[in-house]
């Protein structure tokens, strides 16, 4: 007088496959994102892809309202990320300007300032306060800073005449000589 015990109905095979695929896909995505975040900044030896930096009016480069990295082939490029709200940036502002003034007549070195997540009135006030004259512009949509994977400001990237990164400075420069010694590595 016994009825058969009903077979326990598990999760269908197709559903199991889908669930596992979703889990693996999600973990892979998280892995890729975490990997990118832990990668750090671009490293010396990396070729820097071309980018466009729009410039603030009054801070144009030879009359151009925006510049591309490829415009500076054959020159050493000093790309400084800064912001008006960044206190450590103030420590190096005068040194950067002094170094620019030193290299400007030679024409072998270009200084570029990329203003990171800032408001234009404050950025202009900052540039005026520190008497900065080299080309400066906003990092629109943080595209350039994302490309360089910057971790904060100030950070400065030294790119050689062939568009290859050769030095990364995280934090403010301590002196003009420090900037000069890095630039000099690529000058004849």
């Amino acid at each position: 007088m016994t009825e058969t015990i009903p077979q326990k109905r598990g999760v269908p095979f197709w559903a199991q496959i889908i669930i596992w695929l979703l889990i693996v896909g999600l973990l892979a995505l998280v892995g890729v994102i975490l990997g990118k975040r832990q990668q750090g900044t671009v490293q010396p030896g990396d070729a820097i892809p071309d980018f466009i930096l729009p410039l603030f009016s009054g801070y144009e480069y030879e009359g151009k309202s925006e510049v591309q990295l490829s415009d500076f082939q054959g020159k050493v490029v000093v790309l400084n990320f800064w912001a008006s709200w960044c206190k450590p940036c103030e420590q190096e502002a005068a040194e950067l300007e002094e170094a620019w003034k030193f290299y400007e007549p030679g024409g072998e070195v270009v200084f570029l300032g990329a203003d990171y997540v800032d408001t234009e009135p404050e950025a202009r006030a900052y540039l005026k306060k520190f008497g900065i004259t080299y080309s400066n512009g906003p990092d629109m949509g943080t595209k350039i800073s994302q490309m360089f994977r910057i971790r904060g400001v100030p950070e400065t990237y030294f790119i050689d005449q062939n568009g290859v990164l050769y030095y990364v400075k995280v934090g403010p420069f301590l002196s003009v000589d420090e900037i000069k010694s890095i630039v000099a590595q690529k000058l004849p």
Partner: protein
Amino acid sequence: MKKTLQILTFALILVSLFTGTALAQDNVPTDDEVNAIAQQLYCPVCENTPLDVCPTEACRQWRELIRLQLSQGMTEAEIKQYFVDNYGARVLAEPPRTGLNWLVYILPPAIILLGSFFLFRSFQEWAKPKVASAGTGGDRSEASSPEKDDYVARLEEELKTRK
């Protein structure tokens, strides 16, 4: 008469001054109006902090920028677009429905639905009797564990001896 005229003129100047101030104040967006937009944006430099409650200097500057843009007649959508153009889509509290961002909108409801489905199925399984017996004791062994069988056998034996 001359004195009355002077008082009237003075009063008129005073009234016009205050009216001017009041009108000027009316054009300045209030903190609430600024924060209504700021709370839909996130600080681009300090992660996971809405702009309306962010205490940093940078956030204060951005709130003032919103105030300025509101006073210039920009709409909420235009201000948000300005922030996206300048600081990237990550400043939006609600990510735009494009590309991988869709995962944010699809995954949580999908997981909840899937979880609910399996929970429902599990409840159904638990509610079903594991053994459908006709009431005779002869089939008990099928559902019982060997340890329990042994125990029952010993118990029955004990009872027999006590009779």
